[in-house]
């Protein structure tokens, strides 16, 4: 009985996660190509996608490393890109309090944009799910996403190795970052944060060791949060 509902939760998750292949596959291919073009070997490119599995931060790291930014700054910037996942972790944690620690660790490895969004929506809409069903659903959403990410990275790295410079792949990173940010510009606070980031990153380009970007990002975060607080004050 319990195992049938667990299985159906898994299959439901699989069904909800699979459409994301439309996004994951091209991104993985692109990362494989861009990483290889930047001079990383196959093992290193795959290392990023296996150990980090966070596309935007991987692109950011590869971009900064082509600019020979110091190691510590590469790591700090990449982790700053991933800080939003602390928010995911906080919002999904209450649903997973009865899950065993090692499973929670595995689920943390797999907490990406897609599994988080699907998981929280399902757990909110179906409050009477058992712990096992929650784990099964989450696993179902993640499997297609992760497998597609690894395989498409591999294919991009192998087949994209000899793309000539005419294809202007230098522009793949900014274009994908702009495309990722654009849908998030839904409030004045988000727009202000993004503009602050752009203006300060350009103005602080002279600051050594890539620190200008980190300063720009921290100030932009504060600007976004500050304006959000102001707007709430007006609404109330």
């Amino acid at each position, binding site marked *: 009985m319990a195992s049938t509902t667990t299985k159906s939760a898994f299959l439901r998750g699989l069904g909800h996660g699979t459409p994301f292949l439309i996004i994951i596959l091209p991104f993985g291919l692109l990362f494989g190509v861009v990483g290889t073009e930047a001079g990383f070997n196959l093992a290193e490119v795959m290392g990023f996608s296996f150990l980090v599995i966070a596309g935007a931060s991987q692109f950011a790291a590869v971009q900064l490393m082509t600019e020979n930014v110091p190691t510590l700054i590469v790591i700090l910037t*990449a982790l700053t890109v991933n800080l939003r996942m602390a*928010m995911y*972790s906080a919002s999904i944690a209450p649903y*997973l309090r009865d899950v065993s620690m090692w499973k929670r660790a595995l689920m*943390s490895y797999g907490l990406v944009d897609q599994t988080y969004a699907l998981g929280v929506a399902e757990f909110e809409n179906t409050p009477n799910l058992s712990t096992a069903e929650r784990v099964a659903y989450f696993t179902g959403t993640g499997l297609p996403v992760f497998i597609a990410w690894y395989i498409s990275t591999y294919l991009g790295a192998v087949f994209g190795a000899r793309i000539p410079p005419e294809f202007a792949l230098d522009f793949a990173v900014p274009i994908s970052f702009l495309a990722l940010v654009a849908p998030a510009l839904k409030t004045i606070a988000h727009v202000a944060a993004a503009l602050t980031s752009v203006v300060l990153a350009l103005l602080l380009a002279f600051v050594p060791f890539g620190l200008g970007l980190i300063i720009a990002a921290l100030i932009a*975060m504060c*600007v976004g949060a500050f304006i959000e607080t102001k707007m709430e004050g007006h609404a109330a």
Partner: protein
Amino acid sequence: MNYSDANIWFIIAAMGVGTFLIRFSFIGLVGNRDIPSWILRLLRYTPVAVLPGIAAPLVFFPEATGGQPDPARLLAATVTMAVGIKTKNVILSITSGAVTLYGMMYFLG
């Protein structure tokens, strides 16, 4: 790119461990304690605070044109943003940007 193999693997491993710890933070370590709302508020803005800052110099001063502003890349970036804001479709927005870039490079030579 100018890093030793060990250095590259150190960066990959540190990013892997660090990203895992960020994801594991509340699920595994902090538990269900309430997080101060100002922290959540700051975290909400991390993607829009970091990614445009990385993109901006690449859009305005691309290395491929010797750091000179380039109409093809400026227009491609504008189209990418416009389509992304209008449709909220990431893949469509990237495709439009790429088509614009290649089209401009073809016509402008």
